Every structure is written in C-alpha cells, then in structure tokens.
C-alpha cells in the first residue's frame, strides 16, 4: 500500500463517515458539522489528485462561506432537533432501494470502464496560473455569466429574506 492509497482511504473514510453521520444525526447543526468534515476530507482528496488550488478553494468557499451560512441560518432560526414525523414513506420505500441500485450501477460502470487504471497523483499541476488562463480564455463566457448568477442570487436573497414590512415602509416614504 502506497502512502497515497493510505491517505486516500483515510480521507475517503472520513468523507463517507461524515456523509453517513449527516444522515444519522437528528440535529441540523450536527449534520452541518459532518458536512464540513466531508468537505475537508474532500479537500484532502483533491490534494491527492494534485488539485491544490481547488482544494484551497474548496475549504474557503464551501467550508468557510457556504457552510457558515448554513450554520448561521440554523442558529438564526434556532432550528431544533428534527421531528420524526410520518415522513414520506413512499420516498423511503422506493427511493432508498432505487438510490442504492443507482449507485451500485454507477460503481459497477465505473469499475467496468476503468478497472484498476491508476491516476498519477500530482500528474496535473493545478497551478492557479494555468487555471486562470483556462478560465479567462476557454471558459470566459461561463465565467462572465456567473456574475449574472451571483447578481440574481444576491437580489433573491434580499427580496426573500427581507421582512415583508419593508414594503409597507417604502410606501410610507
């Protein structure tokens, strides 16, 4: 077992454990923390794959920004322990077996397609400079278009989360 495989298995185990914990926990904040663990472990996997930049961004954006938002909202709404209401039995009955089948299918397809082909870790230097070049040439349009996406998101967040009274206030002015 090479050191890479050991590290892969370690991070992978953390990620899977985090994912399962996310499902098992009944309190949203615990789920959020396990999700952060998954993200951190994935950052590790990215490092193994030689994607240093992506790994760093993963930590900053996902763990540092998106999940903070989640935690913030959980705190803000003081969300309590999940109620075990009747749930959607149908979803559980058909969804989970279906999902299992789907993932087994994908896993089989993947193993079938690639078998033991190995990835040379670090074969691809995810240097920020190269990524930037790609981003500003080949993917210029998608990159620019994301600005609209973000604009919409900001606007939407403001519109939806601001108190409805704001409308009244505006009218009075």
């Amino acid at each position: 077992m090479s050191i890479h495989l050991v590290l892969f298995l370690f991070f992978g185990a953390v990620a899977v454990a985090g994912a399962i914990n996310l499902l098992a926990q009944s309190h949203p904040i615990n789920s959020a923390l396990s999700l952060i663990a998954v993200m951190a472990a994935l950052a590790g996997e990215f490092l193994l794959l030689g994607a240093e930049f992506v790994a760093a961004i993963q930590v900053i954006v996902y763990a540092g920004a998106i999940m903070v938002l989640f935690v913030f909202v959980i705190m803000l709404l003081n969300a309590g322990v999940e109620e075990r209401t009747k749930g959607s039995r149908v979803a559980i009955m058909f969804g989970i077996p279906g999902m299992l089948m789907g993932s087994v299918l994908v896993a089989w397809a993947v193993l079938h397609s690639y078998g033991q082909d190995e990835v040379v870790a670090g074969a691809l230097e995810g240097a920020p400079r190269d990524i930037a070049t790609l981003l500003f040439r080949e993917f210029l349009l998608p990159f620019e278009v994301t600005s609209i996406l973000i604009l919409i998101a900001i606007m939407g967040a403001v519109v939806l989360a601001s108190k409805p009274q704001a409308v009244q206030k505006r009218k009075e002015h």
Partner: protein
Amino acid sequence: MVPLSYYLVLSAILFACGVTGFLIKRNVITIFMSIELMLNGVNLSFVAFAAKWHALSGQVFVFFVMVVAAAEAAVGLAIIIAIYRARETLNVDQMNLLKL
C-alpha cells in the same frame, strides 16, 4: 498510486448519500445540505476525471460548481428564512398548504 475508479466510487457513494438524505430527512435545512453533499460528490468526479484526461478544465468546472452552490445557498437559505417566518416550522411534512 490510487486507481481512478476508487475516486469515482467514492464520489458515487457521496452522491448516493446525498440522495438518501434528500429523501429521508425531514428538516429543510438538512435536506438542502444533502443537496450540497451531492454537489460535493460530483466535484470529486470532476477532479478525478480531470486527472484522468490531464485536462485542467475538470478543475475549472469545480470552480463553477462552487459558484453555483454558493448562489443556491444564498437563495435557498433566504427561502428557508422566509418560510420559517411564515410557517414557524422547518419540517417539510408540514409544508402542506398546497396539496390536492
């Protein structure tokens, strides 16, 4: 060295966990987190495939996915706040104003 398929299987497992979470969790926020988990699983696939094809573009996609995830998070959490204001609950089973 690690076989590519291991990464992909890991990514499939994470994606499947996300799907499961989406189906079985009752708290809106947790459901939303499950979606994020799915996206993370996809990201791993992208990076692994990028390594396979020696194409940096795979890593660039992750970048875009993150932006999208961030945008979704902003909007989604705003919606969740709005619904909490209106309904005082985060349980999806009680989001039942609109039923047959």
